[in-house]
């Protein structure tokens, strides 16, 4: 029997199953075994006990030729997405016993194409964090070095793919929560355009920033999952009514995209700069593209240094409003200390939320409060427009932007957790795409001298995911 790692993408896996070289049940058993074996990574909040039953049903469909596009793909789901009658905790004590009452559209679309959902992955509480250290289920560890963080907030999703615990994962990205852990763990991770994938069933953190996207070990699988989860959904009025491409990756006819290198990303002016080995890895990729006849253009995104301040004002404001629904009345944790309504709210929230979530609720409440609204919130909304216009202008000159995904490789557990501002600043290269609503992808481009993965980020204009994927494929073929 072949080992599960002996296929590179889903179509190879399907061929192996069809020809009888691997059995799907065995494949799922191996994943379950790996999850048990690598328990110290703490990637999963829940592993579903009916997963072998799911596998048997799908295997039969595959053999009869009636399986959907994702038939037999084993996928984990970040524990901020609802699946009916399954637990959904957002890695928070406040939702510890919550069971979802409906299924997120993105997950339903996976199920409709016969994907196998293996379980729910650990993450930072309510997707707030860059290290997966803020979880009521405990920290998640990086499989490349278990003393280091996997990144966040979708840390468990990135680890589940990187450590061969499943084929792919769905995560969410509000300021880099797919791309940054993908970079730290050495896998592909795509943040789609805002509005490309329905947010119905995604627990809201910052509603004008939140997106859902895939992690996988190949560009082919990222493209395949995107072809399934994209599209307008009447249940999310911000999902966009625009044609969904087939996401085919034929790169032979791909014209030579003009590639922009934002100078603010390779030579950041402040905030700790950029790790030298990452810089060299990115420059190597740029040289490779030049050798292959690509037009490389230095461009400027002049407001980049204001992205973090803008992002943390606007997202905490939206979060403070979104998280007011956790009141101890309708669902979730209720403190038994209270005997009046005000105390029920206050005590339930005080006992139920973790430290970072409280910090962001406080910050958000402050910037929205009377007397400070104009100085912080409105000001940040204005700067958000300036940041978006930076991209609008740059995309008149280039098709693709190429940058590092993160300023450093995976940092040590505990290294930044005592200093929230330092933690926030580590999101410098990923938050701009969320502020502008554009798509971005992390591409693993090797490891540093300590064996830790390095990530390259590509960004394109609104709804141009296909350009990203085709260019990523091209980049892979010229290595």
């Amino acid at each position, binding site marked *: 029997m072949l080992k599960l790692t002996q296929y590179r993408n889903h179509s190879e896996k399907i061929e192996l199953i069809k020809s009888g070289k691997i059995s799907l049940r065995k494949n799922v058993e191996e994943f379950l075994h790996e999850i048990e074996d690598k328990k110290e990574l703490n990637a999963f909040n829940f592993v579903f006990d009916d997963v072998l039953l799911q596998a048997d049903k799908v295997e039969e469909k595959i053999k009869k030729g009636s399986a959907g596009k994702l038939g037999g793909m084993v996928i984990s789901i970040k524990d901020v997405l609802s699946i009916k009658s399954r637990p959904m905790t957002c890695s928070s004590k406040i939702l510890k016993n919550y069971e979802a009452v409906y299924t997120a559209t993105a997950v339903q679309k996976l199920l409709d194409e016969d994907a196998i959902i293996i379980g729910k992955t650990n993450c930072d509480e309510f997707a707030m964090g860059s290290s997966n250290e803020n979880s009521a289920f405990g920290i998640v560890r990086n499989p490349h070095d278990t003393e280091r963080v996997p990144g966040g907030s979708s840390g468990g999703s990135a680890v589940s793919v990187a450590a061969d615990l499943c084929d792919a994962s769905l995560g969410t990205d509000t300021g880099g929560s797919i791309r940054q852990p993908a970079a730290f763990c050495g896998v592909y991770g795509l943040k789609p355009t805002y509005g490309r994938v329905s947010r119905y069933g995604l627990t809201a953190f910052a509603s004008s920033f939140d997106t859902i996207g895939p992690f996988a070990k190949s560009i082919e699988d990222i493209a395949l999952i995107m072809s399934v989860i994209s599209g307008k959904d009447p249940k999310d009025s911000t999902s966009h009514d625009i044609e969904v491409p087939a996401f085919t990756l034929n790169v032979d006819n791909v014209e030579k995209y003009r590639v922009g290198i934002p100078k603010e990303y390779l030579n950041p002016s402040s905030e700790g700069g950029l790790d030298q080995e990452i810089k060299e890895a990115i420059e190597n990729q740029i040289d490779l593209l030049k050798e292959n006849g690509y037009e490389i253009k230095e461009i400027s995104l002049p407001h980049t240094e204001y992205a973090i301040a803008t992002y943390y004002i606007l997202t905490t404001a939206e979060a403070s409003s979104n998280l007011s629904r956790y009141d101890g009345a309708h669902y979730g944790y209720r403190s038994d200390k209270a005997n009046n309504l005000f105390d029920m709210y206050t005590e339930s929230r005080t006992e139920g939320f973790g430290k970072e979530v409280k910090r962001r609720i406080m*910050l958000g409440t402050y910037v929205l409060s009377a007397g400070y609204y104009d100085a912080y919130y409105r000001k940040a*909304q204005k700067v958000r427009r*300036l940041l978006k216009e930076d991209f609008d202008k740059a995309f008149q000159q280039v098709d693709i932007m190429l940058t590092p995904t993160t300023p450093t490789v995976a940092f040590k557990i505990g290294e930044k957790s005592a200093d929230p501002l330092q933690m926030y600043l580590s999101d410098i290269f990923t938050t701009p795409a969320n502020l502008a609503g554009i798509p971005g992808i992390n591409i693993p481009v090797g490891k540093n001298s300590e064996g830790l993965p390095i990530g390259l980020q590509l960004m394109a204009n609104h709804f141009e995911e296909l350009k990203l994927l085709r260019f990523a494929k091209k980049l892979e073929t010229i290595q």
Partner: protein
Amino acid sequence: MSVTKRDVEYIARLARLRFNDEELESYTAELNEILNYMEKLNELNTETVEPLSHPIENVNVFRDDKLIVSIDRADALKNAPSRDEEFFKVPKVINK
């Protein structure tokens, strides 16, 4: 603009959160550090810039005014910390 411990207490009340003295101290220090960093935005003159509230500037999205079944009562009550057959139960609001 500097945030005092009293401001933090006031904001906590608005957010329905409660902190002990030690937490008040640390949140005050952290909020000051973060807000101080955010002052950076004042380097920019934005007088003529329109605020952007959404990355994809949609017009209103309407649907037909038809009744659509959403979740049923049993499901809605399923996760309630306290309930009866029909309602969520909370501590008494009105005292006679």
